[in-house]
């Protein structure tokens, strides 16, 4: 059984499919996420592929503070993803609410609505930082599965 578990962990770490969700960002982090997916950064080296449907994805990449209007949608998209699923908050606003924290229409960071596994700060976060975030998320997953 141990070999099978190892194989499953290996497969999960080598094939993170991401889906990108804008929960109220100013579009800067979104552009950087898209930039990270361009041939220049070639994330397919790590097996990362952008998927259209949350049902296919493993990693939900969220950008922006969670506005009251987007909160419901964010939770729906999160719940549509099959287990095991991970959430990455990209940008300062997604991590903590940023400059919008305490605003009348803002709930706060992404972790106020759904559980977050990895925070990538920056305004906007650079593509290198986003790729590094995904790789660190996967190594964290690998370590936690090994320790189990």
């Amino acid at each position: 059984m141990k070999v099978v578990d190892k194989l499953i962990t290996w497969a999960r770490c080598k094939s993170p499919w991401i889906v990108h969700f804008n929960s109220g960002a100013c579009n800067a982090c979104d552009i950087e996420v898209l930039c990270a997916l361009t041939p220049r950064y070639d994330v397919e080296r790590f097996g990362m592929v952008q998927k259209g449907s949350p049902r296919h994805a493993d990693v939900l990449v969220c950008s922006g503070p969670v506005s009251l209007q987007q909160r419901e949608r964010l939770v729906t998209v999160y719940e549509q993803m099959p287990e095991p699923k991970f959430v990455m908050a990209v940008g300062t606003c997604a991590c903590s609410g940023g400059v919008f924290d305490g605003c009348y229409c803002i709930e706060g960071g992404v972790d106020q609505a759904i559980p977050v596994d990895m925070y990538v700060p920056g305004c906007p976060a650079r593509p290198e930082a986003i790729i590094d975030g995904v790789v660190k998320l996967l190594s964290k997953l690998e370590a936690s599965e090994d320790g189990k």
Partner: protein
Amino acid sequence: MALDLFYIVIFPGFLFLGAISLVFEYIDRKLYARLQNRIGPRWYQPLADIIKLLTKETIIPKEADRRFFAAVPMVALAATTAAFLYVPIWSSRSLMPFASDLIVVLYFLTIPTLCFFLAGWFSSSLFAQIGGVRALTQLFAYEVPLYMALLAPALLAGTWSISGITAFYHQHPIYLLLNIPAFCICIISAQGKLERVPFDIPDAETEIVGGTFTEYSGRLLALFKMTLNSEMVVVAALIAAIFIPVFVQSAILNFLLFLVKVFVIVFVLALMRASFARFRIDQMISFCWKVLAPISLAQILVDIIVRGIILK
């Protein structure tokens, strides 16, 4: 009985087709990446994708028809695997050749497309239904030129069996040159059959999320992924068997030749995928009906005339 089971499950059936389709998916993705001037995935990437999907949670939406939703991917995979049994691999004859097996293979290859439509339909999701209807609309566009282009060499050879066609062209290789337009049409419409760029209209991610597969996840999505991969190998092998019937005496050399021929066709398919953008559905249909269908009709006409006058 045991031998039949071996043929169906291991070689050249399910396991062999699964393994070889993963290899060719890697080759396709790697070529695509190199054509975009990037490094591309590592060799185990398709395997990791499949294992990951097989071990993920499988969600069946509340609105969807549970039984059909789960059954449709299996039917699609079974149909492609069945089609592979009738395609020649290690000799000019397939495993179980019989008269008119070409038509049977073509019918088997239509089943996955119908399954994509049914998958979209039974998902009861808006995006999936649009994708399903598009898959069906596209089917009526590319299927006619594809069939006519594959049947033209058969008409010239005067037989519907794949082994008969390969034997004929082995004797008269000069007639292969006559079928070059049909070969080009086959390659183009195969892109439609495999739902790849520029004809990936049914699962256009930028328009309709994931198309027919929007609601599929986990194990069922893995089955669909395997269906698409193995369909690519089966279609490439079929085109190779009919248009490039080069066979030698030794079975091992023939098998290597088979791999080379499939590689060449996958290379052309990857080249097309890298150099085109997606067409709109109306552009695709009018292209298929106004350009490809008349050319394939002309091809059939030429083949009939040649058969009637020269080969009489």
